[in-house]
């Protein structure tokens, strides 16, 4: 906007007395900063502006007086703060679409400039101060609460996302151009990771970024999302089969290395979810790429009879700190200080409680018996990959006895063996029908089909086994996370 600044009067948070625009203009120009408490960009901008600008800025918070005071405390604002309570008439008067919006008003009452979002180089001359030269130099703002009011009256943005089909059934973050650009972090939007079966939509970086925005990812999660998408598009993963099968198949994403702390992934209590943004949204972003860009939407080309709750998205981080074993990715040959994403196509998890075993043999027997029930109780052998998520207390029992992953996998394989005569029921394999009556068969074709990671809280003895997507000929795929653009 330009021309004269509309006059107004709003309560100050310190005195609750009304203050008018004019009284801030006695000592020179002032910058009105429109803000609300739900916007991370607003917090960032206020934290950097407040120490440098002091009384030169007047915060106009789209909040009640107490909420505006809380915002001021969180952001370290000591200068004047006004509460523009709903329906935020002053924000509407100034046609604010985004927070933060900084509006410079000269002593004669004219508007001299407007900056939306956080933009250090634009804000320095607007406010007339030097601001800290720290990344990010720019960050898009968030929707003004006045815009939200408009949606209530007419077009509702979350409903609009459902109308467009931009959803997995849950509400999403609208993939505005600003948000997608921030997610891309300077990457070429037209770059491609390949096509996503079954419809072979092209996974341009821009579309993958749109999915990451929809899922609720922060931009710093994006390198992990990219690694996960790259991994599922590796032909040996068989994303086509996993996407369209009647099985309850879904990719489990396993993260190892420094990336876990860098983006705040949970590997401890509740490691399989829910409750942690990075876990929930990285797994969800991958699923959105598969179901929207790839067209494997449930009830459409995804023909899964039941599905399972993990198909919303399932991203776990190995609890390397609590594990007695080297990190999963290090055992695959990746440097221990690298960060990796592994995708494994699995069925729904089966929880295994055991608080009584005191020897590794006893505990491994319990895990083996649980795994024998996966896929189908009489279907032996399985030739795809089973994933054991071993909790720290269980892992400690194995570790203290000197059992490494290989020994545990071998024991599970050796223990899960049955006479074929016991297995000739219902759905079973040709091997079981054709083997001699005195023959035996293992649950897996090889110990190599058993994957083991350690995750979960340090109290409680519950592990889990994810059965395989048997018959899919899917292979786990690991990709190193590339942090640079």
């Amino acid at each position, binding site marked *: 906007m330009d021309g004269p600044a509309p006059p107004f009067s709003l309560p100050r948070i310190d005195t609750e007395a009304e203050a008018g625009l004019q009284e801030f203009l006695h000592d020179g120009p002032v910058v009105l900063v429109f803000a609300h408490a739900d916007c991370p960009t607003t917090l960032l901008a206020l934290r950097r502006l407040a120490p440098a600008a002091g009384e030169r800025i007047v915060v106009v918070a789209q909040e009640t007086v107490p909420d505006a005071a809380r915002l001021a405390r969180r952001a370290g604002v000591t200068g004047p703060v006004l509460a523009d309570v709903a329906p935020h008439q002053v924000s509407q008067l100034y046609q604010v679409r985004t927070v933060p919006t900084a509006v410079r008003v000269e002593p004669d009452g004219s508007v001299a400039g407007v900056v939306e979002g956080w933009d250090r180089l634009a804000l320095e001359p607007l406010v007339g101060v030097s601001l800290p030269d720290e990344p990010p130099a720019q960050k898009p703002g968030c929707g003004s609460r006045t815009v939200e009011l408009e949606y209530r009256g007419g077009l509702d943005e979350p409903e609009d996302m459902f109308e467009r089909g931009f959803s997995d059934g849950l509400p999403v973050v609208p*993939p505005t151009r600003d948000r997608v650009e921030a997610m891309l972090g300077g990457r070429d939007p037209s770059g491609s990771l390949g096509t996503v079966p079954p419809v072979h939509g092209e996974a341009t970086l821009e579309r993958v970024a749109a999915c990451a925005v929809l899922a609720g990812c922060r931009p710093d999660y994006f390198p992990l999302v990219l690694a996960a998408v790259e991994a599922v598009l590796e032909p040996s993963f068989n994303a086509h089969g996993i996407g369209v099968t009647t099985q309850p198949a879904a990719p489990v994403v396993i993260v190892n290395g420094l990336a876990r702390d860098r983006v705040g992934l949970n590997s401890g209590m509740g490691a399989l979810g829910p409750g942690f943004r990075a876990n929930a949204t990285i797994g969800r972003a991958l699923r959105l790429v598969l179901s929207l860009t790839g067209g494997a939407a449930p009830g459409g080309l995804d023909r899964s009879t039941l599905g399972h709750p993990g198909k919303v998205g399932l991203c776990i981080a190995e609890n390397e700190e609590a594990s007695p074993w080297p990190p999963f990715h290090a055992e695959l040959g990746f440097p221990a200080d690298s960060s990796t994403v592994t995708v494994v196509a699995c069925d729904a998890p089966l929880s295994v409680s055991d608080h009584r075993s005191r020897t590794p043999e006893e505990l491994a027997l319990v895990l083996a018996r649980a795994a024998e029930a996966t896929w189908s109780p009489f279907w032996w052998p399985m030739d795809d990959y089973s994933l054991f998520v071993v909790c720290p207390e269980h892992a400690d029992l194995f570790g203290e006895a000197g059992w490494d992953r290989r020994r545990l996998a071998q024991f599970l394989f050796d223990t899960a063996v049955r006479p074929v005569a016991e297995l000739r029921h219902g759905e079973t394999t040709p091997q079981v029908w054709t083997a001699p009556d005195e023959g035996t068969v293992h649950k897996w074709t090889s110990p190599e089909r058993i994957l083991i990671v350690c995750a979960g809280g340090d109290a409680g003895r519950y592990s889990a086994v994810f059965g395989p997507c048997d018959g899919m000929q899917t292979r786990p795929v690991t990709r190193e996370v590339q942090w640079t653009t």
Partner: protein
Amino acid sequence: MDYVSPFDPRTAEPVPAAPRPERLEGRRVVLLDIRKARGAQFLDRIAVRLAAAGAQTFRLDKETFSKPASREVIDRVPLHGDLVVEALAD
């Protein structure tokens, strides 16, 4: 508001199905077995009925049911038939 779509517009329009044949007599029909359990039995029965209707049949197998057919299998279909019957699932 302008949004970035997660969809590839090239995939928005499904390929339309070919028209159904008016008659089967004298037509060449490929019977494609994707190797799902009992798919072969189903195709055996279909072959008998097609023969009774005066059609010629030719059997082809996919390598595995869990993955798309290879280019080689796809290319062989028009060499041996004008029509295809696929046994999709058990």
